[in-house]
């Protein structure tokens, strides 16, 4: 209890906690859950974008997309490493993902249907992710905070690339391309807003996380910031955000926006989204089909070790 009080005092003083430091079990568990979920999101998030690598329309765009998806895998790696500092292993975390015990961001249960989706995912989905993640760079658990600094830097690069690709299509493209961009925005706008999680009043884990300095800004506050930042970007693009209630509220100094379809949110989180089953099946298939490779690598390493010992 004394240790717990000391811990709380450090948190209150804005100290960072390192892996070797003592921490309450619930703090540790909360972090493992959040960091591994975040890592899984990066890995599962490779799939919807990876879907367009083979069809990228120019070699430059193909290279950008490959690099982006590769970066996401890299984020997964740092984040698994950050979680491992808390005493779990990558295999344990992957097992939790594959068996359905662990979650990943629900946004990746939506399909990428056109090339414009790739730009829009960069702009809106990465944009929302950054909005969520920037405060995590000041998270109380230092290894996570450090990973997030790197992740955020790369993600804002991705977001700019996504936005830029939309600008090219909207400003120099054909009518068919412009329609493709607008259609993609129509499909991704609301799911992007849902990325900030349930409304504050319905968000059970938030309070303790705020208390512990794992979370720094509430879901609704982040969502509002995202809307306010995105509206002018949409204007520059020349696309319409699919919300008739979206307008500037002079009094609040913020945008009002329409009601989110929380029934859809909970349905998709609960497993009944367009791609839930398939995303998980794809990951499990890759893992299962790779089993012989991992076993062979292990067997070879063992042989090498035996040889070295014998020598």
């Amino acid at each position, binding site marked *: 209890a004394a240790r717990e009080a000391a811990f709380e005092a450090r948190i209150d003083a804005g100290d960072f906690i390192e892996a070797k430091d003592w921490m309450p079990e619930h703090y540790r568990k909360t972090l493992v859950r959040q960091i591994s979920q975040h890592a899984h999101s990066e890995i599962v998030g490779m799939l919807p974008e990876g879907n367009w690598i083979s069809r990228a329309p120019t070699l430059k765009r193909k290279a950008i997309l490959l690099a982006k998806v590769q970066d996401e895998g890299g984020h997964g790696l740092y984040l698994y490493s950050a979680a491992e500092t808390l005493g779990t292993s990558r295999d344990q975390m992957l097992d939790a993902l594959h068996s359905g015990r662990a979650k990943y961001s629900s946004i990746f249960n939506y399909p990428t249907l056109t090339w414009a989706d790739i730009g829009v995912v960069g702009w809106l989905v990465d944009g929302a992710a950054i909005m969520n993640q920037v405060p995590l760079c000041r998270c109380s658990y230092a290894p996570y905070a450090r990973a997030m600094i790197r992740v955020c830097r790369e993600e804002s690069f991705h977001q700019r690339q996504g936005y830029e690709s939309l600008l090219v299509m909207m400003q120099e493209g054909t009518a068919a391309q412009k329609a493709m961009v607008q259609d993609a925005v129509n499909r991704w706008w609301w799911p992007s807003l849902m990325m900030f999680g349930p409304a504050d009043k319905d968000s059970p884990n938030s309070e303790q996380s705020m208390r512990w300095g794992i979370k720094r800004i509430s879901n609704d506050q982040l969502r509002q910031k995202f809307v306010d930042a995105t509206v002018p970007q949409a204007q520059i693009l020349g696309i319409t955000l699919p919300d008739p209630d979206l307008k500037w509220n002079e009094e609040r100094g913020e945008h009002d926006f329409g009601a989110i379809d929380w029934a859809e949110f909970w349905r998709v989180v609960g497993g009944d989204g367009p791609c839930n089953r398939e995303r998980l099946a794809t990951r499990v298939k890759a*893992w299962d089909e790779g089993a012989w490779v991992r076993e062979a690598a292990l067997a070879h390493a063992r042989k090498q070790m035996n040889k070295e010992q014998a020598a």
Partner: protein
Amino acid sequence: MSQASIQVGASPQVQYLLRIADSCLILGQRLGEWCGHGPILEEDLALANMALDLIGQARALLTHAAHLDGQGHDEDQLAFLRDERQYLNPVLMELPRGDFAFTQVRNFAVATWLQLLWGRLASSSDAEVAAIAAKAVKESRYHQQHAADWVVRLGDGTDESAARMREALAQLWPLFNELFDADAVDAAAVAQGLGPAWSELRADWQAQMDEVLADATLAHPKPSAYVSAGRRGVHSEHMGHLLAEMQYLQRAYPGGKW
């Protein structure tokens, strides 16, 4: 405003460069398919990275080939708007990605070959080709090393991995012949000092393959008399499916800007 196919001229110089550019392009396309589907996350990254290097090499060579061809095409028109019969990569590159054993055996064979080829092209009489090659040879050396590690690990791993490696070798072996086939395009490149006849690379390639296969405790398959002719645009049935996908957006959105 039509996305009908373009034609590339028949100059042996352009053909020689396209054979290499298309090899990088098409193998890069295949490696990109692994992204999100590898056996361990580190390999998703490594294979994507290789794909990225190969696409970069292809871009540089395609741009240069388009310039030499002198019809005002750019890298993307060459990459996306030729008919299948105008792609000049050896058939080896276009075969489906297969399992991880197949991918690593092919990567090793191709990287060994490219590393030798870029090494020779670094002293090309064409300064642009020499510059591209000087950068690319370092990338290929890294690809070769990475694949060699896997060939050894999987060849000398478990019974299953060794069996898969033998099967991959048996499937791929007949396709290696084309990497060393000789013809008039080659002869012209030698005459111009543009680059080596591919046949000149065979001995070194074989020596480097042999060394790693020995470490991997893998035997040679029996030689095959078949020589594929992708370098003259005669591909396998896989190529058309690959191109249908790769070219789709360029074909379906005439006049698009991306």
